[in-house]
């Protein structure tokens, strides 16, 4: 039905000739734009409703005093639905630690939350298909669980800034009024428009790359440099991605372009994870609660795990 609509718009309304490169590209652009924005709106709305049941306070309660392993898995999963923005990373970290959430479990949450979220998954789904979206989600969770477990096993609590342990929260957040289902729907609507406002431009650029640059740059342009044959492609992509800072939506146009031009799947996914999960600004924010040594350990473990994921997918896909 969407296809028919895009078809109608390009050939009947705009009166373009069939079979040209431009009209084909435009049809693809219109079709993809409508499809992805529909997907985004519906999925973000549904996730927002689920999300309204998991404010950070509740997530904290669920995770406090959980055993490692089970705790890491739960934390990674809750990272998908609990609202998070990097500006809240520090109060969230303190809140978790203060409530007795083990350090490794806290890290699993901090890693999964910005990396695996509905925007990333929907965009991958819309542009590359549901398999890639599921693979990204699965491996993102795996990275969060493994990295969190390693940090937990290393017993690095001593490398958290001391003042964090002295803070005692007043537990005042319980004052926030109970929400009715209507409140949740309003929240979901506001959250959906909020997120769409943030990401629409990136999404259009990504689709534009797919629709227009397609065919103008040689298909195998990157294969020569970053195809499956090059064993250094994954570490180089990750090394480039770590300092770059972007949310999932912002990195999608680059990801699309790289994939289109022949970079292999594992390398692209590793790059995307490195960009969303690790960045300089986030390190500076986290430095307020973590000593430099712990920060270095965190970045190293993440880098190694993400490179591992990249190699794994290049080997099996």
């Amino acid at each position, binding site marked *: 039905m969407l296809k028919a609509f895009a078809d109608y718009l390009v050939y009947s309304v705009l009166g373009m000739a069939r079979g040209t490169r431009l009209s084909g590209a435009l049809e693809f652009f219109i079709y993809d734009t409508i499809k992805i924005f529909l997907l985004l709106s519906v999925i973000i709305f549904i996730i927002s409703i689920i999300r309204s049941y998991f404010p950070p*306070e509740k997530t904290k309660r669920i995770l406090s005093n959980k055993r490692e392993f089970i705790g890491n898995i739960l934390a990674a999963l809750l990272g998908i639905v609990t609202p998070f923005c990097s*500006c*809240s990373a520090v109060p969230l970290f303190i809140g978790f630690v203060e409530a007795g959430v083990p350090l490794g479990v806290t890290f699993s949450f901090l890693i999964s939350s910005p990396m695996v979220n509905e925007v990333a998954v929907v965009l991958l789904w819309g542009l590359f298909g549901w398999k890639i979206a599921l693979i990204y989600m699965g491996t993102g969770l795996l990275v969060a669980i493994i990295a969190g477990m390693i940090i937990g096993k290393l017993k690095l609590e001593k490398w958290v800034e001391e003042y964090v342990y002295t*803070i005692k*929260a007043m537990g005042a957040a319980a*004052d926030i009024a109970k929400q009715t289902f209507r409140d949740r729907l309003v929240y979901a609507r506001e959250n959906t428009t909020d997120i769409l406002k943030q990401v629409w431009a990136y999404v259009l650029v990504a689709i534009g790359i797919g629709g227009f640059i397609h065919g103008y740059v040689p298909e195998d342009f990157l294969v020569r440099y970053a195809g499956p044959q090059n064993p250094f492609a994954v570490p180089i992509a990750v090394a480039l991605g770590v300092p770059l800072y972007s949310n999932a939506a912002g990195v999608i146009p680059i990801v699309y372009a790289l994939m289109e031009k022949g970079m292999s799947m594992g390398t692209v996914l590793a790059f995307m994870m490195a960009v969303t999960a690790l960045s300089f600004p986030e390190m500076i924010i986290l430095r307020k609660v973590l000593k430099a040594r712990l920060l270095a350990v965190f970045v190293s473990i993440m880098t190694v795990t993400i490179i591992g994921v990249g190699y794994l997918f290049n080997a099996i896909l």
Partner: protein
Amino acid sequence: MEIKVLGPGCSNCFKLEELAKTAVKDLGLEATVVKITDIGQIATHGIMATPGLVVNGKVKHSGKPLPSLDKVKELIKSELVNG
């Protein structure tokens, strides 16, 4: 009456501070709006998603999306009734 806006200084914290000030003016209240950026203090209030709005020591809002101006007024008024 004391109203606190808590956040490390992102644009949303700014907007919430403006909303709170406008609400106080519109309601004609004798209240001070204080901005708190210290991470330790933010965490001490039990706020884990910024920006937070605290009225008379009670957390009224935390996180995004921001409440509307009417909602902020309502949140502040709820404390007036309680004294």
